[in-house]
């Protein structure tokens, strides 16, 4: 089985429990969305790339967009997003897709969050492809927030980026391994710089790298 398929199957297995522990939007994402509300107009499209249970799609839906797309590789996670949207009465268009081969047309996205997902793509090629894909779908005036887990987190002693698995323990005690590429901060920055995205700002916060980016020049 190919490793990208393995990541999908892992999240299908743990979807319900995982989603139940992902209640709140991250403050860094709230700040990003609030800071860009002025750019949004009626007809704008938002994208939550690697949406999981749609906690960040919910933030975008509150910003008055025409469409909010929640895209994830895992059908199980998309179902948790559907439940959340029903319970909390927000609109999200759910799409099953791969972050490295996006099923979205060029330049249609005005605002995107790509949070805690990039590090699950199992090869550097796939990670770089996904950054180029994000650049492709962003409007020329669009903005995105990209985050990934990094070696700066207290959990890690390493200073170079590395591949690992992190266990997810289900309520019955069963542990399920999840693939991660833990980025070194300078490696994260280098991958962004090498991509078609334009880096506007970047920071380390709570052991994660965050970059605010614009799409490619067209």
């Amino acid at each position: 089985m190919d490793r990208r398929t393995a990541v999908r199957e892992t999240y299908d297995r743990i979807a319900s429990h995982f989603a139940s522990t992902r209640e709140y939007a991250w403050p860094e994402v709230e700040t990003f969305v609030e800071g860009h509300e002025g750019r949004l107009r009626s007809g704008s499209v938002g994208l939550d790339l690697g949406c999981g249970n749609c906690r960040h799609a919910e933030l975008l839906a509150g910003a008055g967009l025409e469409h909010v797309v929640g895209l994830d590789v895992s059908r199980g996670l998309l179902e948790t997003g559907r439940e959340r949207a029903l319970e909390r009465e927000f609109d999200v268009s759910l799409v099953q897709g791969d972050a490295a081969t996006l099923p979205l047309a060029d330049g249609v996205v005005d605002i995107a969050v790509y949070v805690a997902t990039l590090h699950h793509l199992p090869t550097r090629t796939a990670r770089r492809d996904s950054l180029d894909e994000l650049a492709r779908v962003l409007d020329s005036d669009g903005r995105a927030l990209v985050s990934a887990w990094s070696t700066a987190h207290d959990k890690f002693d390493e200073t170079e980026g590395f591949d690992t698995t992190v266990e997810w323990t289900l309520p019955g005690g069963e542990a399920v391994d999840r693939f991660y590429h833990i980025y070194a901060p300078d490696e994260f920055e280098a991958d962004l710089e090498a991509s078609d995205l334009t880096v506007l700002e970047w920071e380390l916060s709570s052991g994660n790298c965050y970059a605010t980016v614009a799409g490619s020049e067209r």
Partner: protein
Amino acid sequence: MKESLLEILCCPLDKHDLELEDAEYDGDEVVDGVLVCTECGERYPIEDGIPNLLPPDMREESPA
């Protein structure tokens, strides 16, 4: 999915437009049908209202 979503979706492989076939509706929601690439002809199912636009090599059915 809403049919208006077709304006922004595309084939993940070649990025060409998709056409909706065999659609079944519940109000303005498309709950079943197939999205077909106008260029390469690849077919993507809409499963219980959610389009499955994974590239075909990642799409095989996972155990329920």
